[in-house]
Every structure is written in C-alpha cells, then in structure tokens.
C-alpha cells in the first residue's frame, strides 16, 4: 500500500516551514519531493534599495544562525568593489567571529540532530556548552545572534587583552567537551545505531549533485573554500580540512565535531598572533561600475554572494546562493529508500537553513494543485478582485 505523508510546512521536526512529501510503502520511502517558498522575504529586492553600508545589516538578517556568514560574504564582495583593504587586525577579528560562529552553529546542529534522534540528554548537554561560545560572541560583539561586527573596511569593535585571555581560557573547556561529544557521537550504541548507514550519499553523487560543506566532506569530497580559494587570513593560517568516508549521517556528525576541534586551533592561532594596529579604515560610499562574486565557507557549506554595481552607492543586483540550496538536490537522493523514521535525521543532517535559501514563491491552486507564475500587477489585481465587496465569511472552510 502506497501513501503520501506530508512532513511540513508545519511539523514538530521542522524548525522552519518547508514541505517534504514522502511516498511510503509501509515504513520505507519510495519517493520524496520538496517544495520551497514558505518563507520568502524579498531580501534581494530590498538590497537594491539600500546602500552598501545598510546592506551589511540587511544581509546579516538573511539567516539567524550563520548571520555573520552572510554579512562577511557581502562585505568581502563590497570591499572588492569599493577597492578598500581592511587592516590586518580587523581581518583577524572578523574571522575570529567567523570561527566562533562555526563552533556555535555546529554545536547547535549536534543538539538538534540528537533531538531528532530522540537523544534529549545529549541535546541538553550540547546546548549548555554552546552557551560558552554564545557568551564569547556576546563579549566580543555585544550581541548573541546578529553580531553586527562587520563594516566596510574592517570591523566595528576592537579586542582588549582581557578578552583575548577569556577566549583562550574558554577554549580549554570547549576542547574537552567537544572531544567528549565526539566520543559519544561515534560510540554510544543506540545513537550510532540510528546514524550509521542512514542517508547514504556516495562520493560520485555528492560531486554530481553539487553538495557543499560538511555534507560533501562526509562523502569524502574535500572541498572547503577556506582551503580552495582562501580569503582573509586563511592562506596564512594552518588548518586541515576534515573529511569522512562513511557517506552517511554518522560521517556528517563526525565531520562537524572534528571541524569544531579544528576551529578551536584556528581561534587559538588567531588569538596568539593577533597583530597590532587599527581595526578599520574609511571606505568610500560609491563603487565603480562592475560586478563581483564573493565566496565564503559558512558552517553549512559554500556561501556565494554576487554583487553588481552601477556606480552609485547602492548595488544594482545582489544574488545570494546559500549553502542549503546547494544541498537540496542531494537531500532528495539521500531520502529515497530510507525509513520514515530517518527522515528528520537525514534532513537535519544537511543542517538546513530554510529561510536562507528561499528566493521564490510558487503559487499553487489549493483545490487543483496547479502551479502558476503570476506577475506583481496581476497579483494585486487578483487580490482586489477577490476581496471586492466580499461579505464577511462565517465558518469559512479552507480552501475558500
């Protein structure tokens, strides 16, 4: 007996709205489909109305977890267009926040994955230790989520010696804890039993479907923008790219925890070699006409911002390719021929940030299931037509 189970747009397993439709045979998934567009906010259009400086704070709000990734990616591109070079100390602080954000994002992911697997104790412990990182970020930037530390030509806040010492001290605790979680993630039998051999994605598939970030690295594809196309100070920072060859959710867990350990080393390097000097330089307001593509290794994978300038102080076009979007195609492959019980885990294992990746809306007729493309003027006309002289509906049943 085949039947279709909808997971989402509203479902306890999903933290953000997305629609997964699973065709099941018993508990086994035969087909999976994905529908986006429940969280479209028109950010790219809005960016065209704002100056480069204002856009830093707008792009920061694309995501609530990797907020710094988007603003840094945008700033990297904008600085190239504006032809400013941030001072070295500013660069170090900028990517210090990047690495701390990676750690907090991976800890958050580990907690969510544990919760999806029904291992709430690990969830509670991981999120307790995540507070250490959150406190560091708050100390550095004054904020827990939207750090707002980037500016054109550097960063907005400097570090003092006490803060550097505090960061280095916290690293000890975090290292110890992360090693413990690596042990649990790789050895606790009931947890490993849920993760191993789930959501398989072979190396070839990962390359073919353009998977990015830890999802690709867990399939033994060693891609990392920090290594392949170094930006900031990553070319002078020693670190290695973590991979796993198990090609399953267990591999994705191990890769992420190992990446945290690598991030601690990077943070320590940055703090021990923090150069003196200013943290920012003045940047011009207008960019020369041109276009630029900025790449950035976000916690979830490669983040790409394309900026086109027309000579004014506002970008003519901003295009964001969030890492989650790059992983959707691979997700559908992973879901097929898995168990229904594994859907939340497989889906969570790409660390989906749904609102990052929403660029379009699909209009679907609720009764017939037909899809349309509708222009804005037509949409307005439709809205007026529908509600013109419409009486108040009592006991209305959806769809109207």
């Amino acid at each position, binding site marked *: 007996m085949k*039947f279709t*189970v909808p997971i989402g747009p509203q479902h306890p397993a999903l933290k953000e709205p997305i629609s997964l439709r699973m065709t099941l045979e018993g508990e086994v998934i035969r087909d999976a489909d994905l529908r986006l567009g429940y969280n479209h906010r028109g950010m790219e259009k809005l960016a065209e109305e704002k100056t480069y400086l204002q856009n830093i704070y707008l792009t920061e709000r694309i995501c609530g977890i990797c907020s710094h990734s988007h603003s840094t990616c945008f700033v990297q591109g904008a600085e190239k267009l504006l032809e400013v070079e941030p001072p070295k100390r500013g660069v170090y602080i900028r990517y210090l926040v990047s690495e701390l954000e990676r750690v907090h994002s991976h800890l958050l992911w580990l907690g969510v994955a544990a919760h999806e697997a*029904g291992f709430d104790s690990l969830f*509670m*412990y991981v999120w307790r230790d995540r507070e250490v990182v959150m406190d560091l970020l708050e100390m550095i930037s004054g904020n827990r989520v939207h750090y707002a530390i980037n500016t054109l030509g550097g960063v907005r806040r400097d570090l003092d010696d006490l803060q550097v010492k505090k960061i280095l001290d916290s690293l000890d605790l975090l290292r110890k804890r992360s090693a413990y979680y690596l042990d649990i993630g790789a050895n606790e039998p*009931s947890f490993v039993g849920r993760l191993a051999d789930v959501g398989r994605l072979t190396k070839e598939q990962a390359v073919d479907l353009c998977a990015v970030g830890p999802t690709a690295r867990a399939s033994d594809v060693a891609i990392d923008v920090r290594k392949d196309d170094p930006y900031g100070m990553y070319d002078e920072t020693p670190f290695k790219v973590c991979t796993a060859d198990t090609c399953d959710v267990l591999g994705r867990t191990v890769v992420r925890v190992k990446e945290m350990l690598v991030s601690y080393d990077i943070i320590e390097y940055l703090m021990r070699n923090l150069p003196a000097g200013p943290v920012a330089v003045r940047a011009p307001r207008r960019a020369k006409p041109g276009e630029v593509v900025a790449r950035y290794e976000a916690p979830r994978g490669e983040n790409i911002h394309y900026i086109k300038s027309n000579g004014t102080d506002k970008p003519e076009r901003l295009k964001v390719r969030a890492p989650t979007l790059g992983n959707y195609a691979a997700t559908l492959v992973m879901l097929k021929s898995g168990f229904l019980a594994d859907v*939340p885990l497989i889906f969570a294992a790409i660390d989906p940030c749904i609102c990052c990746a929403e660029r379009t809306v699909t209009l679907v007729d609720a009764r017939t299931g037909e899809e349309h493309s509708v222009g804005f003027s037509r949409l307005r006309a439709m809205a007026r037509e529908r509600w013109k002289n419409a009486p108040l509906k009592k006991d209305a049943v959806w769809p109207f």
Partner: protein
Amino acid sequence: MAILKTLLYLLVYPGFLFVFVYSTFCEWFDRKVFARLQNRMGPTHTGRFGLLQPVADIVKLLAKEDIVPEKADRRMFSLLPAVGLAVAATAMLLLPVWHFSLERPSPNSFPGDIIVILYILSLPTLIFFLAAWSSTSFYSEIGGARVLTLLFGYEVPLFLAVLGPAIMAGSWRLAEIAHFFQQRPLLLLPNLLGFLIALICLQAKLERTPFDIPHAETEIVGGTFTEYSGKKLALFRLMIDVEMVAGAGLLAAVFLGGFPGGVFVGLVHFVIKTLFVIFLLAVMRAVTSRIRIDQVVNFSWRYLAPLAVLQLFIILLLKGFVL
C-alpha cells in the same frame, strides 16, 4: 469488617486514592530524575519541589478544549481513554499488597494471577492501537502500526523473564512467589538477568526512550495521540502513569521480594521498591537515543529472547539440582 476491609482496599490502598496520588508522584519522580540527569532542574514551581506539577498538568488538560476529529469513530475515540485508565488501575488491584491471606486464595490473589496481570498489562497496547486507528489520521495510523510491531518485539521476552521466578517458586500466584523469595532472599540473585530483561521490556511497554517510537514527535508528530486533546489526553497520560506504577509493582513483587509486613511496612517496601524500578527506567531513558522500529524487533529477538531463554534454563538447572 470484611466489607470495610474490601472498601479500604478498593478506595484507599492500593485502590483509587493511592493509585492517583502515587502515580502522579511517580511521574514527578521520573521527570525530576530525568531532568537532573540532563543537567536541568525539572519541575520546581508548582507545589513544594514541583511535586504538584503532574497534577497541575492534568488539571490544565481537563480545562482544555476537547476536539474529536470529524472523521473519527466518535464512540471508540471517546471511550478508549476511560477504558484504558480502568484497565491500568485494575492491574494495580492484583498486586500482592496486603488484602490477601497466603493460605486462602481470594478474588485478588489466586493461582494464575501472574498471568492475568501480565495480560491486563498487555491491554493498554491494544487500547493505544485502537485509539490510533479510530482517530483516522496519518500520523496516528503509523503510530498505531508501530505500537503493534513493538508489542511483537517485547512481549515474549517479558513473559519469559517474569515467569522465571514463578517457576523457581513453583507457584503461579504473586503472593506465594513473593513469599518464597522473602524466605530465601539469596535466590533473587540468579534472577538478575531476568530482572534486567523485564526492565527493558517494561520500558518498551511504557513506550519511553529508547522505545518511544509510536509517538516519536520528530517523525510522526504525536503518533498515537496526535488527535487527542483535553480530557481524553489527560486520561491517557494518567493511564500511562498508572501503568508505570503497576509495571514497576509487578517487577518489584516478582524480582525484588514483594512487599512483606502488612499494611504500613508493606507500603514502605512498595514505595522504595517501585521507586527503585522507576529510577532505573528514568536512567535508561536519559542515556539512550530513540531506536528504529526494525532495530527494536531485531534487538529483542536477537538478544532479549535468547537471553530470557537462557535465564529460564539457569532456573530449571537450579531447581533440578540445588533446590
């Protein structure tokens, strides 16, 4: 006098009053232990140490809107929570607490009552399945199918494990089994393996982590209980609490030497032993992750059932050569 005694038995201990007060206390205990193991506080505000939190939850649910899905089987859907609670409370009455004489069997303590209580404790599973089926929601139906699949996994090992001590004591009557082990406490040790198996099976019967598959919220929302709300959900929650106490009581009576010493000393025995069992259940809940339904069936037939048979074999050998 006999009537008064029976009334006390039915209404006070271990009847209604005790069942409801003690089962909510056990839920609090379970939640508190679980929370402390997770580095959380658990219930703190309602009542002293949050002791009244489970009661507050039930009162809150009773006041909530009670929705019956349009397409659900209305009669079954509404009746099942009450039936379930009655069934779980009935199991409590069969525990050998105080109202029995060892020589003379009575309606609540007779040869074969160990089988009856095991069957009564199986009924909630069937009730969960029927409740899921009559609520006609996708998530409920998947939950219901999982409830039954789970039953195939744990039921046989549980029966085998619980019957071990009965064979050793040479009786099918809970009171006599408990009495047998009270006389020879050392003989409880060979049953340790059986106790662990029964503990794991009880965890599965109560559908708690790692066996909370039928209502895994991240997969199938509320599973069995997706469509239940208000009063009916409150009754189901109370039923699960009572089932937990009854199950813990059964394990205590069979594996931990029962509740000797009349009403008051027996009560102390009952509380300490059931809390011990519930403590172990809470620890098991805290240190494991939810496993898949196929892994459960695999695990119980590959490990639990053979181990239960091994336990039975050990007991037969002991009974043949030592006793």
